[in-house]
């Protein structure tokens, strides 16, 4: 559990107004807590890592809010796919060697089907 203030203190280039805007944009999704104003939110490590990611991207590429939304949307899709891919891989790993072999044979070579 990390407080709003701790995040702003950690990153000198981050203004508290920015962080609350990011929360309103739903770029960062903290948990609601009982406090007032900015202290009504509490954050997890994934949120801090995401703040750091947004700051990195913004610094490197000088993106405006609209483009940042697009970039984050695409990143979230990639990570979503990777999560699903991982689930599928785990499921495949737990199969018997015969089944895994059959699946491997059924896979078209990379590059076919426009892949």
């Amino acid at each position, binding site marked *: 559990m990390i407080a709003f203030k*701790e995040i702003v*203190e*950690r*990153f*000198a*280039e981050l203004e508290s107004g920015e962080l609350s805007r990011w929360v309103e944009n739903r770029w960062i*999704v903290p948990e609601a807590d009982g406090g007032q104003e900015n202290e009504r939110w509490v954050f*997890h*490590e*994934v949120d*801090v*890592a*995401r703040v*750091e*990611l947004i*700051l*990195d991207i913004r*610094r490197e590429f000088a993106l405006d809010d609209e483009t940042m939304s697009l970039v984050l*949307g695409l*990143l*979230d*899709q990639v*990570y*979503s796919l*990777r*999560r*699903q891919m*991982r*689930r*599928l*891989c785990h499921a495949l*790993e737990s199969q018997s060697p015969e089944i*895994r072999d059959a699946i*491997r044979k059924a*896979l*078209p*070579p*990379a*590059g*076919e*089907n*426009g*892949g």
Partner: protein
Amino acid sequence: MATQTPYEVLGVNKDASADEIRKAYRKLAKQFHPDLNPGKPEAEARFKSISTAYDLLSDPEKRGRYDRGEIDESGAERPRYSYRPHAEGAQGWKYRPEGEFDPADLDDLFEMFGRGGQGGGARRGGQAGSRDFQMPGADRHFTLTIDFVTAATGGKQRLALSEDEWLDVTIPPGIDDRQVLRLKGKGGPGFGGGPPGDALIEVHVAPHPWFRREGDDIHMELPVSLAEAVLGARVPVATVTGPVTMTIPKGSDTGTQLRLRGKGIRRKRRGAETAGDQYVTLKVVIGASGDPELANFLEEWAKQHPTDPRRGIGGGTTEGAAAA
């Protein structure tokens, strides 16, 4: 947690200039210097933190690293949060895009992987071992120079892939200079049963002595004699598909442009054949300027037909130019 940032210690804004930081430091250093505050340990502690803060903020590199969260206020390295492990972990789930499919629904999963799946990509999981590892072969890159006419009409061109490996490359009609052709499966061999890579061939089109391309049209300049231009003629003209006969209308001149319909680049677009045109621009070549008969004739003719081809180019009249 309640540690002050170096900016707070010096009482400056986050965007303070180097000058402002130096001034703030000097002022505070004087105020809290241990020599000026003997017997006051709190002043000494304050002085230390002021020095540490100044040390960090006066060095642009350290200040930048601090601002980016790479080091803390004492200058010590901070562990960096890498987003990926979080995003792929359980916590990352909350940032899933809206409409992410329900992973319990296998139909969705198979549909998704059936459509643009990366096939036998690299495996994870250790126990499977390297015999399971499949990778497509590397792409190989080549360049191939072809002549202008082959580029226009299409054809076959032989390409050496290695010392003893040849490939007849089919050139589609109308290929552009520096266009890249991809030949599936002609790259490096695949790994562990993976498919071979592709050959990527960058085609260079050599310039032609008289043809020039503009899109699907061919342009050329055609020399004609004075008599052909004045009296008209039928003359042979080269096209990319062979010579044709063209009529030069009576009273043509240098710069007259004639069109040979359909003699440009022919190609199939979505089943329908399209063709560009060839544009021929005439260039009158007298070729017999030293001929006394022509000179005699022109002497009389010019007296009765004064013309000034330079009118409007701003050089003045012919007489005026001669006088200058």
